[in-house]
């Protein structure tokens, strides 16, 4: 079992072990972890949208959709940078948080796997329902991250701030994509 899966299965003890192992971050390790997640996003979007996968398509769509990592980085920065109790550098904290990608990576790959291996395309309602699993799982990971890595006295507050920033930015993008704030406000009668 690799370290990412160990972290997904037992987050508190794994984060604790990783913090003890090294306090300073490695840009190479962070880049490697980001590359893996860009590949997951690129491959899942390319298979969902075209039914195929090639180097050109996966890299193209991975780069196009990499704005989701910018959102993730901003949300992480809002809780990592102000954390005064953390014993690791900010770079190491980012690196450790990137280890927690497993729940969402599996969810992203699921429709690509069912479409290509089983020949069955998952519907939007099914995917939305299944998203509750990585959503809840990530909250558990984030809570462990807040306690073991950031040494936060109020880990639930860290979880709340991170999720508020993350989903707030995601809602901003969705609003842009479906026609703008003015239209959204009009739709709800404001």
């Amino acid at each position, binding site marked *: *079992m*690799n370290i*990412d*899966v160990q972290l997904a299965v037992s987050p508190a003890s794994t984060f604790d072990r990783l913090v003890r192992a090294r306090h300073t971050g490695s840009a190479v390790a962070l880049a490697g972890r980001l590359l*893996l997640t860009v*590949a*997951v996003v690129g*491959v*899942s*979007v390319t*298979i*969902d*949208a*075209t*039914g*195929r*996968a*090639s*180097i*050109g*398509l*996966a890299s*193209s*769509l991975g780069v*196009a*959709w990499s704005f989701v990592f910018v959102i993730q980085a901003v949300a992480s920065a809002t809780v990592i940078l102000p954390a005064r109790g953390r014993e690791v550098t900010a770079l190491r904290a980012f690196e450790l948080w990137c280890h927690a990608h*497993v729940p969402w*990576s*599996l969810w992203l*790959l699921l429709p*690509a*796997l069912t*479409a*290509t*291996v089983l*020949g069955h*395309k998952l519907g939007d309602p099914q995917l939305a329902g299944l998203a509750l699993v990585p959503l809840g799982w990530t909250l558990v990971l984030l809570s462990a991250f807040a306690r073991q890595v950031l040494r936060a006295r109020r880990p639930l507050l860290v979880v709340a701030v991170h999720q508020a920033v993350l989903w707030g930015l995601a809602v901003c993008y*969705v609003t*842009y*994509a*479906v*026609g*703008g704030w003015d*239209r959204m406000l*009009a*739709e709800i009668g404001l």
Partner: protein
Amino acid sequence: MSGARWASLALCAAGLLAGALEPRPPAREPLRSGAHWLLAVDFHVHGFPGDGALPPWVLRDEAARAGLDAFVLTNHNRVSTARAARRMFGDTPGPLVIVGQEVTGRGFHIVAAGLEERVDWTSAAAAIRAIHAQKGVAIAAHPSAAYRTGWDEATIALLDGVERAHPSMETPPAGSQFAEFDAHAAALKPGIAFIGSSDYHVAQTPGFCRTWVLARERSADAIVAAVREGRTAAMDMAGQLYGNADVVRLVRAAHLTAPRPRTPTVWSRTAAAVVAIGLLLLILL
């Protein structure tokens, strides 16, 4: 990195390489009919950034694979992606990209094609006038009951076209509601253009439903003019044609068949499966 992870990475790379080696379907030459071109156009396609999955450069390639001669990039209440795409491709070979917008308001959606600037969405009538002021055309998008409360007879009479073929028509009762709205529009405005579009976001493929356009030349302006003059036929996913009798006759004579749903070849599906499995193993091992 462990041997198992290297093996997973190699599997993933092999799948991506195999996917890249798959031969492309042959490019379809645009058809001529006397002095006119018979062009396959998708008037309703969403791209990234927006709520479509594919950025314009991939979208254009998908449109070429689907045998389209042109498509209108119609993001919700935005023209920025479409304008960037038009600038990006210029006169390079491949499907034409026409700047459009899905004017998304309360109780109506309008596909606008041939725009330069964003159109305000607050009322259907005002939107259509703004589209016409830019020399564009206005098409009622997927006019099922949910998207019909913003229309009145005077506004319907301003339209240049109606979506007659759309993937949602397979879901009852949308099909019969489209037919009812379109018959009403045709009675109010004889010769109104019937349009087929995919409303592509992520599923299916661009051109899944399409429009055959009899255009004087292979250009965005000529395609828009053909809609204004009603020289179109909508084709649904079953190959059923609706619209201008001359265009329908020409399409039938040319034996142009129904657009195929996305059916990856065994090669591409296997390559994609290998990539997905490789990535899964890379995450887990």
